[in-house]
């Protein structure tokens, strides 16, 4: 179905008051860039209507989709989040996919663009991976001009399932992105999620992962680039509800111009989650005096037999690295670009092969 809702304000559309900066989760995140756009319903078709599905991947019927949609959101505790409510109220384009048990690894490419007409493209994606299923998703979300993307993705990973998920979100100066990526993992499953965002006036991504009984592997990689007056926010949550879970999380930021970057990384290790092994690192690179970075690990650890490491660094381009390149005849500008590209490459190289052609950050990294 295509959205036909008419509403004059974002509050009307979502049926809930906008998050206020008095709320801890929205303290650093100003929604002005969103409210500057008048909500207009999506007039295009279903961007995923002609999607070619690989072997072993089938669409859920409407009844099946209705039965499971929202479950992962509820289990990861975000069904009442404002961006999720907005998505539900905006009659999103829905796609539900099942990946059959024990299939050979399959690759899926999803790409959609919010256009430039100031419209709201709402997408709700539901992925169900049966035991031992394996799927690689290369997902591209973009906007060519004024536009808003509301993205809600749910993924349910059964025992021993593997999901390798790369999201590239390339925005424009008058576009906003609100995304929730909710994943529930059964024991033995492996999630690798790499999210890259750049160019949006406002982007807010909330990866939320629940290891329902622990004993799963979660790998999160994030890279957000802000410039001019852009604001990018990642609020991640990983919760272990059983023992022997693993998390390896790296979040990187480049903040240029008067850009603002927010990272909040919650990790919850309750009493049942003994022998959890979790590592989170947030690295931020400040390229200008006007840019601002707010980064916060938020570890709640109750279990006593765990390894939980976390770290946060905020730095400028290292003078020694720049000098080393300059001393080899490489000009200061090119040296800075090489260092930046290297810094980003750490995350970009983890994107699925199908995402390579999208060249995320190409504009930022290659322009002189």
């Amino acid at each position: 179905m295509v959205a036909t809702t008419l509403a004059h304000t974002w509050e009307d559309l979502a049926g809930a008051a906008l998050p206020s900066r008095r709320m801890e989760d929205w303290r650093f995140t100003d929604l002005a860039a969103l409210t500057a756009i008048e909500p207009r319903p999506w007039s295009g078709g279903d961007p995923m209507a002609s999607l070619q599905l690989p072997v072993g991947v089938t669409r859920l019927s409407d009844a099946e989709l209705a039965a499971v949609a929202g479950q992962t959101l509820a289990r990861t505790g975000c069904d009442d989040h404002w961006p999720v409510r907005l998505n539900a109220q905006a009659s999103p384009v829905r796609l539900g996919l099942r990946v059959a048990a024990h299939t050979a690894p399959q690759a899926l490419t999803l790409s959609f663009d919010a256009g430039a007409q100031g419209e709201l493209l709402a997408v709700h994606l539901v992925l169900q991976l049966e035991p031992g299923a394996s799927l690689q998703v290369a997902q591209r979300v973009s906007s060519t001009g004024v536009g808003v993307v509301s993205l809600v993705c749910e993924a349910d990973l059964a025992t021993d399932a593997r999901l390798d998920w790369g999201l590239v979100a390339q925005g424009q100066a008058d576009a906003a992105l609100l995304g929730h990526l909710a994943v529930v993992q059964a024991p033995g499953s492996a999630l690798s999620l790499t999210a890259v965002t750049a160019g949006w006036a406002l982007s807010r991504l909330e990866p939320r992962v629940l290891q329902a009984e622990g004993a799963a592997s979660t790998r999160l990689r994030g890279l957000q680039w802000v410039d001019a007056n852009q604001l990018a926010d990642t609020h991640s949550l990983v919760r272990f509800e059983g023992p022997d879970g693993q998390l390896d999380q790296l979040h990187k930021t480049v903040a240029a111009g008067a850009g603002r970057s927010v990272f909040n990384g919650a990790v919850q290790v309750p009493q049942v989650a003994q022998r959890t092994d979790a590592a989170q690192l947030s690295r931020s690179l400040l390229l200008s005096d006007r840019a601002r970075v707010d980064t916060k690990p938020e570890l709640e650890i109750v279990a006593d037999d765990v390894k939980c490491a976390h770290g946060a660094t905020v730095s400028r381009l290292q003078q020694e690295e720049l000098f080393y390149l300059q001393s080899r005849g490489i000009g200061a500008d090119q040296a800075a670009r090489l260092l930046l590209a290297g810094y980003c490459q750490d995350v970009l190289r983890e994107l699925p092969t199908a995402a390579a052609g999208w060249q995320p950050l190409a504009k930022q990294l290659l322009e002189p």
Partner: protein
Amino acid sequence: MIRPDAPVLLEVRDLRASVEDQPILHGVNLTIRAGEIHAVMGRNGSGKSTLSKVLAGHPAYTVTGGTVTYQGQNLLELDPEQRARIGLFLGFQYPVEIPGVSNLEFLRVATNARRQQGGASELDTFAFEDLVRERLAVVQMDPAFLERSVNEGFSGGEKKRNEILQMALLEPVVAILDETDSGLDIDALRIVAGGVNQLASPDNATLLITHYQRLLDLITPDHVHVMAAGRILRSGGPELAHELERTGYDWVDQELALAEVG
């Protein structure tokens, strides 16, 4: 190789420099002619590493007096990258690790920057690969190192070999090697010294900054300078290095004390 009529490549006159307002160099004089190998020796803190960084243009160091002339040109007014492009090379004591930047790409960009300055054409990926594979032989380096990030995860010896590989590609006119021998086992030292010897020619010059004689057993210098307290205290031939090896640096302190009293 000493030839009194060889052209002067680098002329340092009364060079003074400081870092964070702390004076380190107190008037260094040094003349290097084509074909010569010089060694600057001295204890830690004598200013020898500062001298190398000031010559290469490190931004943390401020020149407070004196002149440096490189092939007739005022070196001190040039950016570090311009100095490199006209043939000045600094081999780092601690080569910097640059994650995410491929060693091969780095070497290619650097080589092309130097070539373009000399009016040569830029090498494309294929032509450059041929060149780099040939030059790898100078330091007996495994081509696998080209695929890795610049110096990332390299051992001490591998980093120093990568420095000499860069030297082999950039073909400098004056190469300053800052403690290239530090942290090397004897095999790695032989390979690195062998590389330096292969690259030395009547048209270029090498300035070795070192603490120990052992590098000079493998690369024979024409001139040896002893540095202390930010100055060159004594200059001589290779025999001066042997004398230092025998007597240690204690006489330097005495001579320094005398100089200060005088």
